[in-house]
């Protein structure tokens, strides 16, 4: 929902530039969250073998889905509407982490970076992982930017009243689905 925060800040400050400025820390916070999870997976992959890693990552995704069902709607609010660069970065990092954005990339990262028995990192797995994270971040940022500008410039806020479907509930299914795929695979 980074685009919405950016739109709100743009409306508060009455400027399209504020929308775009807000997207920088929002993109970075998201990337940071994803990098930490990706690094953890690669490290873990260097000490345990492929099937075990799949099971661990699959279980983590399932647990995250369960957490969302039970507690997902109860987050302490730490960042307000006066958020600056650091505040937005923190907010984006917390939201991405809470949603398990990094975990969702694991099913893609494992075949890309890790193959064979424990310890056998495929050659150049770090650059590949960084490339994957970079691509993911760029794509996320682009989509966020397009939605933010479209809502700010043309669509307007009234859209939220009907168009804001409960993506969090769909996200639970996505998390659980990815978890099952890893566990079964």
């Amino acid at each position, binding site marked *: 929902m980074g685009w919405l925060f950016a739109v*709100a800040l743009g409306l*508060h400050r009455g400027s399209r530039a504020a929308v775009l400025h807000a997207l920088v820390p929002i993109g970075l916070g998201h990337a940071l969250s994803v990098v930490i999870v990706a690094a953890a997976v690669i490290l873990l992959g260097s000490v345990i073998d492929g099937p075990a890693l799949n099971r661990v990552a699959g279980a983590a995704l399932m647990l995250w889905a369960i957490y969302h069902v039970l507690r997902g709607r109860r987050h302490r609010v730490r960042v*307000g*509407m*006066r958020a600056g660069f650091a505040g937005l970065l923190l907010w984006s990092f917390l939201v991405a982490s809470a949603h398990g954005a990094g975990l969702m990339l694991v099913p893609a990262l494992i075949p890309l970076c890790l193959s064979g028995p424990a310890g056998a990192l495929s050659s150049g797995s770090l650059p590949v992982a960084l490339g994957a994270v970079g691509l993911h971040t760029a794509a996320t940022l682009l989509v966020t930017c397009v939605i933010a500008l479209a809502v700010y410039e043309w669509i307007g806020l009234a859209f939220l*009243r009907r168009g*804001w479907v*409960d993506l969090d509930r769909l996200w639970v299914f996505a998390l659980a689905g990815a978890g099952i795929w890893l566990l079964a695979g």
Partner: protein
Amino acid sequence: MATWTPDPTFYPSPRLAARAPAEKFAYVASFAPERKRKDVLAVVDVDPRSPSYAQIVGKVDMSRPGDELHHFGWNACSSCLCPNAPHPHVERRYLVVPGLRSSRIHIVDTKPDPKRPRVVKVIEPDEIADRAGYTRPHTVHCGPEGIYVSALGNADGKGPGGVFLMDHETFEVRGRWEVDRGPQEFAYDMWWHLGYDTVVTSEWGTPDMFEEGLVPELLLGSKYGRKLHFWDLHKRRHLQEIDFGKEHQLIFELRPAHDPTKAYGFVNCVISLEDLSSSIWVWYRDGEQWAVKKVVSIPAEPADPDLLPPALKDFKACPPLVTDIDLSVDDKFLYVSCWGTGDFLQYDVSDPFAPKLTGKLRIGGIVSRETHPKAKGKLNGGPQMVEVSRDGRRIYFTNSLYGAIDPQFYTGGLEGWMVKVDADPEGGMALDPEFFVAWPKGHLPHQVRLEGGDASSDSYCYP
């Protein structure tokens, strides 16, 4: 309980909320001053096309007598659309109804039939005292972290009062809100500027200072509340207090601008010890600090001592006693209840520092006892809790202030009523001659909440 698309009563901005459809029902807190019967939440039909227009068409009993229903609020509102803390798929469905005297909170479900609300949960005083350390719950606001409730007493019924949080779906008491209360001791109302991450709280006193009525020695000694407090909404820390000065007593209702980019709001001071006047103040951002300025002063009216209650005879004047104010959703008009004189005033506050009086009417009043076209004879009590519809065209108010204080100013006690005013969007207003609800004997009406939200229920994150 959750829905796939946002609750249709949530609006991102006050501009969009002002286009909301007209309300068909009003919920009114109704308490039994004798405390022998149970208090009720009454449902009043406010649809002019309905055959039961201006009648009580439903009610729900609280669980036991003695609650003293006063203020109440919705479990969720437009602030659920805020980008930093979104909960867009929670339903606005439950009314959170505190008993100011009992410290019990009833959760009332307004669905599926808004005319037949039901009590679905009772939170006992012990639970609130154990988990939050507070009693005497008062103002209820839906906000970024759930339901915020101001409370006038601590667990022992003394000071400091404060604010606690409740979950907006399970109604579990989550605990005390403040991390650092600084010098704050008295509590009363609380609201915020979502666009400035700032909470504002006002002051009445601790329960021992009001539960038997206003204490003249405390009032004349300027011992009741006279300060505003400003807090960081998310760090939950006290930032600043502003003392209105020794002459000003009872700083009550907080009405911040609905537009989240505007950093100002209005608050009423009930009485000045110098001349019995009431005043309206604006608080505003002044550099990195908050500041206040008196923008309206409403004088007392000379009166025949024979017509005044004992406490006022020596003064030979009737104080206006501004006990409630309400700001329209477009931040254009401020409505002011003068519970003492019976005046109800409309100010154009487009320029918050220079309010212009644009409408005035009188009903009830300590001396005037002005009637209503539909009422039988003189009326007692005066304009009190006031609520403005989202489009700003309809205003409702009731006449009781507080069980123990009503007879101090209206000797012999009150007979309850509720009326409606039609407002002109360009300024000016008139009583709706068809709308007079003579309140059932044995109960008195207090706060009004409108179906789908009203001017004092919702806050917004987008301009």
